[in-house]
C-alpha cells in the first residue's frame, strides 16, 4: 500500500479546510494501521522495515532513514530512498544531524542542508538530499531517530513533523515491546532449561542413590539368609557381608552429603575451616584411599610430589576436591594411568590431575564446572555431575583457580593453583553463578 500524504498547511498552499481535514483523517487512519503493524512486530528488523517505508508515505519525502544510537555513535541502520544514503554507516553523535536530534531531544527541520552549520556537507554531497526533517525516537532518552529527506528544497511543515513525531512515538513503544518480548523469551528459555536440568538431575540422582542402596539391600538380605541358615554360612562370610553393607551405606551417605553440599553452595556461602597442613601428604592419603577404585578401573595412580608442600587451607575441602578430580580421572580414563603432580610454584601450590581418557568434548567445555555438568553421556557414565561444580566453589573460596585442558579421546588435565596461605577474610565467599 502506497499512500502519499504530503499535506501542506492551508496557509502554505491555500488548500480548502475540507481537503486539509480529509488529508489529516487519511494520515490518522494510516497511523492507526501502522500502530497495528508495529504492535505485531517481534523484532527490530520488522520495525525498521515498517518505519522506513511509512516515514516516506506519511510525508511524501524522497527518502527516509532509521537511525539507532550505538553508544557515542549514530548507526544508520536502515533506509528507503530514491538513491542510496548512509545505510550501514556510523557517525559520531556530535557530527551528524541525527546525533544532534538525540542529544538535544528535539526535532530538526532544515530547508537547505548546505546552509546549516550542523550538517557535515561532505557527507551529503554524494547524495540527493537538499532538505530534511529529523525526529528523535523516545524523546525523554532517545534510542534513535527517524529522518526524512527531500531532493528539492522543502521546509517540512508543522503537520509533517507532527506525523513524524507520532511515528517516532509508536516506534519507541514498539521497540520497548520488542525488548520486553526478547527478555520474556530469554527468561522463558532459562526457565525451561532450568526445569529440564532439574528433571534430568532428579532422574540422575535417583539412579545414583539407587546404586549403593541396591548393594546395601542385597548384602543385608544376604546376611539375613546366611544368619537364618538358608544357605551355607560361616562367620567370615557374614562379616564380609556386613562390612560390604556398611561400605554401601557410607557411599550412600557420601552421595547425600554431596547433594546437600551443592544445595548449600547454591543458596549460601561456603565456609572454610583453615588449618596448616601438608598438601603433598594429603594428596598421598587421598590416592591411598582410592587405591581399590583405581585397581578396579585398571588405572595406575602415579604421584609426582616433593616431600612436603605446607600451606594453610581447609583440609577436608581440599581432600574433597582431590577425590572428585581423581574419581573423574578413574571414571573417564579407565584402563590407563592417571598422573598427579603436586608442587610449590612461588607463593602458590600447584596441583595437576592428568588422565588419558575420553577427554571433554569442546561443545560442553564451557559447562563442565556448572552444576550437573558431565563429560560423558549419562548412559555410559554415572555420577551426579556435581564434582567439578563443588571443586570450583571450594577452590575459588580459597582464592585459587581451577582450569582444564583437554582434547577429545586424548584425555584431560585439571590444574589447580592455590595461594599458600588462604587469608581469613576469604573464608566465606559468595557462590559463583554458573
Amino acid at each position, binding site marked *: 500500500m502506497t499512500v502519499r500524504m504530503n499535506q501542506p498547511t492551508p496557509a502554505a498552499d491555500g488548500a480548502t479546510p475540507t481537503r486539509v481535514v480529509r488529508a489529516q483523517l487519511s494520515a490518522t487512519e494510516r497511523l492507526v494501521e501502522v500502530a497495528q503493524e508495529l504492535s505485531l512486530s517481534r523484532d527490530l528488523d520488522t520495525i525498521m522495515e515498517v518505519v522506513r517505508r511509512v516515514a516516506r508515505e506519511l510525508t511524501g519525502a524522497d527518502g527516509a532513514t532509521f537511525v539507532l544510537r550505538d553508544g557515542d555513535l549514530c548507526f544508520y541502520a536502515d533506509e528507503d530512498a530514491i538513491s542510496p544514503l548512509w545505510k550501514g554507516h556510523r557517525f559520531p553523535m556530535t557530527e551528524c544531524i541525527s546525533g544532534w536530534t538525540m542529544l538535544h531531544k528535539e526535532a530538526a527541520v532544515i530547508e537547505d542542508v548546505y546552509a546549516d552549520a550542523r550538517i557535515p556537507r561532505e557527507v551529503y554531497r554524494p547524495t540527493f538530499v537538499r532538505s530534511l526533517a529529523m525526529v528523535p525516537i523516545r524523546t525523554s532518552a532517545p534510542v534513535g531517530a527517524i529522518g526524512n529527506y527531500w531532493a528539492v528544497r522543502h521546509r517540512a511543515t508543522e503537520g509533517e513533523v507532527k506525523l513524524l513525531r507520532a511515528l517516532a512515538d509508536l516506534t519507541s513503544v514498539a521497540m520497548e515491546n520488542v525488548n520486553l518480548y526478547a527478555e520474556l523469551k530469554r527468561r522463558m528459555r532459562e526457565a525451561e532449561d532450568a526445569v529440564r536440568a532439574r528433571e534430568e538431575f532428579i532422574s540422575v540422582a*535417583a539412579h545414583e542413590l539407587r546404586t549403593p542402596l541396591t548393594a546395601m*539391600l542385597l*548384602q543385608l538380605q544376604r546376611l539375613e*539368609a546366611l544368619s537364618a541358615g538358608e544357605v*551355607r554360612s560361616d562367620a567370615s562370610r557374614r562379616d564380609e557381608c556386613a562390612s*560390604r553393607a556398611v561400605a554401601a551405606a557410607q557411599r550412600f551417605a557420601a552421595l547425600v552429603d554431596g547433594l546437600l553440599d551443592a544445595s548449600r553452595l547454591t543458596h549460601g556461602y561456603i565456609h572454610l575451616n583453615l588449618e596448616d597442613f601438608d598438601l603433598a601428604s594429603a594428596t598421598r592419603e587421598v590416592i591411598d584411599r582410592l587405591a581399590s577404585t583405581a585397581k578396579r578401573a585398571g588405572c595406575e595412580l602415579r604421584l609426582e610430589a616433593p616431600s612436603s608442600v605446607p600451606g594453610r587451607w581447609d583440609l577436608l575441602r581440599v581432600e574433597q576436591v582431590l577425590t572428585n578430580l581423581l574419581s573423574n580421572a578413574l571414571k573417564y580414563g579407565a584402563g590407563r594411568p592417571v598422573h598427579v603432580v603436586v608442587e610449590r610454584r612461588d607463593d602458590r601450590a600447584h596441583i595437576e590431575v592428568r588422565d588419558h581418557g575420553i577427554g571433554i568434548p569442546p561443545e560442553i567445555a564451557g559447562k563442565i564446572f556448572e552444576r550437573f555438568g558431565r563429560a*560423558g553421556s549419562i548412559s*555410559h557414565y554415572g555420577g551426579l555431575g556435581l564434582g567439578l561444580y563443588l571443586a570450583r566453589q571450594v577452590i575459588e573460596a580459597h582464592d585459587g583457580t581451577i582450569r582444564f585442558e583437554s582434547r577429545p579421546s586424548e584425555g584431560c588435565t585439571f590444574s589447580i593453583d592455590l595461594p599458600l596461605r588462604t587469608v581469613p577474610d576469604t573464608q566465606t565467599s559468595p557462590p559463583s553463578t554458573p
Partner: protein
Amino acid sequence: MNELATVMVVEDDADISDAIASTLEDHGYCVIVAANGQEALDKLRQAPKPPHLILLDLMMPVLDGWQFREVQKGDPALADVPVVLLSAHVDIRSAANQLAAVAWLKKPVDLRALLEVVEECYKRTNGSMA
C-alpha cells in the same frame, strides 16, 4: 540346584556386581562378572560355553546395555542367551520390551525377587535347575 547353571552379571558398579555374584554363588550358581558391555562380549567369546543367562545393566561405560544387546543379537553364537535387565532406568519395562529381554528387575532389587527371576528364566529356557 544344578551347579553348572552359569549366570553372567554385566554391571559397572563393583559393589552391586559383588553383591549379586555373592548372592547367586550362595545359591549354587556359577557367576561370571563383566564391568561393561565390551568386557562381557570379550568374556562371552572366550568362554567355552555361553552362560545360561545374562543379567544386564543399562548404563555402563565403554559399551552400554543397549549397545551390548545390539551386538549380542547380531552374533549367532550369543544371540540365544536370554537376558534379564537389571537397572534403575525410569522406564525399564519399555526398555526390556525394546531389547527383547526375557524379564527385568528394577534397582534396588530384592534378593528373593532376583533369585526367583533367575530361577524362573533359567527354567523357561533351560529346564528345571532343581
